[in-house]
């Protein structure tokens, strides 16, 4: 009886790992390092994390978690409210929907998947941000941050893969 209760508690903690790691990555990116543009890593890390967990542990990264993580980025950055929430829901939807293609195969496939889905995310981001500001937002920073995100994906994915055992029953 007691052990099953402890089991349930442990399961709950395990289930919270993907969300918690994503949230910590977002917060960590926004600390005042005094490095130029370091905070731009926050939405990129959120995107990579939501993509990764949606592909490899979709049951632990539901759409609601993606929504909340996007909201966290929006709230902290002071940008258009709901923008990152919308983008991350769509990333989750696309990644979880294609997980059979993305998860089983080689790492290169999941990387390519990230490249494509994040590109779509950048376009949606640009479109809604432009709509929100009622002016065509400069697209170069989005393209640059997408490129950096894609380049950084293997490193972040490696870190998240190291964390993945935390989500499995021991």
């Amino acid at each position: 009886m007691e052990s099953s209760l402890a089991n349930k508690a442990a399961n709950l903690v395990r289930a919270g790992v993907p969300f918690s790691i994503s949230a910590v990555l977002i917060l960590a990116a926004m600390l005042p390092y005094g490095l130029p543009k370091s905070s731009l890593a926050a939405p990129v890390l959120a995107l990579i994390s939501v993509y990764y967990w949606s592909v490899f542990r979709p049951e632990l990264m539901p759409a609601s978690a993606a929504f909340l993580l996007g909201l966290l980025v929006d709230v902290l950055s002071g940008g258009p409210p709901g923008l990152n929430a919308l983008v991350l829901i769509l990333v989750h939807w696309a990644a979880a929907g294609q997980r059979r293609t993305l998860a089983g195969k080689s790492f290169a496939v999941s990387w390519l998947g990230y490249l494509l889905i994040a590109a779509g995310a950048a376009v949606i981001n640009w479109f809604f941000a432009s709509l929100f500001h009622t002016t065509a937002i400069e697209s170069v920073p989005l393209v640059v941050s997408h490129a950096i995100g894609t380049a950084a994906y293997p490193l972040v994915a490696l870190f998240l893969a190291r964390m993945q055992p935390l989500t499995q029953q021991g």
Partner: protein
Amino acid sequence: MAKGPRLSSLSRVAAPARGVAQRFGLLLLMTAAVALLVLGKTHSDAIRHLRVMAVEAVAPVLEVLSAPVISARHAIAEIENFWNTGRDNRSLREQVARLSKWQIIARNLEQENASLRALLVPVLDPAPQFISARVIGDTSGLFVQSALLNAGKQDGVERGQAVTTGQGLAGRVVEVGQRSSRLLLLTDLNSRVPVTMEHSRHRAVLAGDNSARPRLTFLPANANVNPGDRVVTSGHAGVFPPGLPVGIVSSVMDGEAHIQPYVDWARLEYVTILRYRAVPVGDIERRNEAAADAADATALDGASSTAGTDP
């Protein structure tokens, strides 16, 4: 990938129901996100209020996490200082020699200024009071250039107050919670600062464009602006005290001048928030009270319409 037995048995039972719920949930969440975007546009005040409350909840976490980051930055700066001691010493000696001459000139000017002021009885701006705050979050994104500070309403911070560093103007306060506030940087797309060219006294508005170098707008057509000209706040609109250093004209191309702000964004650690209120023109008695107690001065909006106290 390898689901536990518990999870799989659960999902087998609840799979159809969950499928429907998930699809609806996705739609619901997407609608919620779009609704937030629309509300952010139509009810920006209410959304800002909600955002302030949310930031308030996260701020303590950021404050704790940012402390070691700041310490590490100090440690690195200390090591740099140690290595540069010899060179710094030399350049500081040179500076002292140069500035001593300036000090004599400044003293003379100060006296002359005081005696001329006594003749004229001009309306003086109240001396601003200061609130010191630490930057706890660098929250600049692709569309908004901002930082979070660990001072809020309870410390006397109010919306619209100017934020400076030792070097110059950094921006203004746009959101205030009880214990935290958001600083909108000069470089943000929505930042507009009334400025004056220090020498020619031409007025302009410094408009952020999300680049590192905001541009001067509303500059008179006949204004002669050259790279290297210093730009200070004009004090118009009554939000910022006049004369705060802002930056240097870095380039003039096709009549468009860009400013290199004095603030070194990489060193934004501690900032000074100015509790400043412009005083309506001609209201000399009130100005003394206001100078004595800026906190009790009239509301910002009330003062701003009559501000602009150039003698």
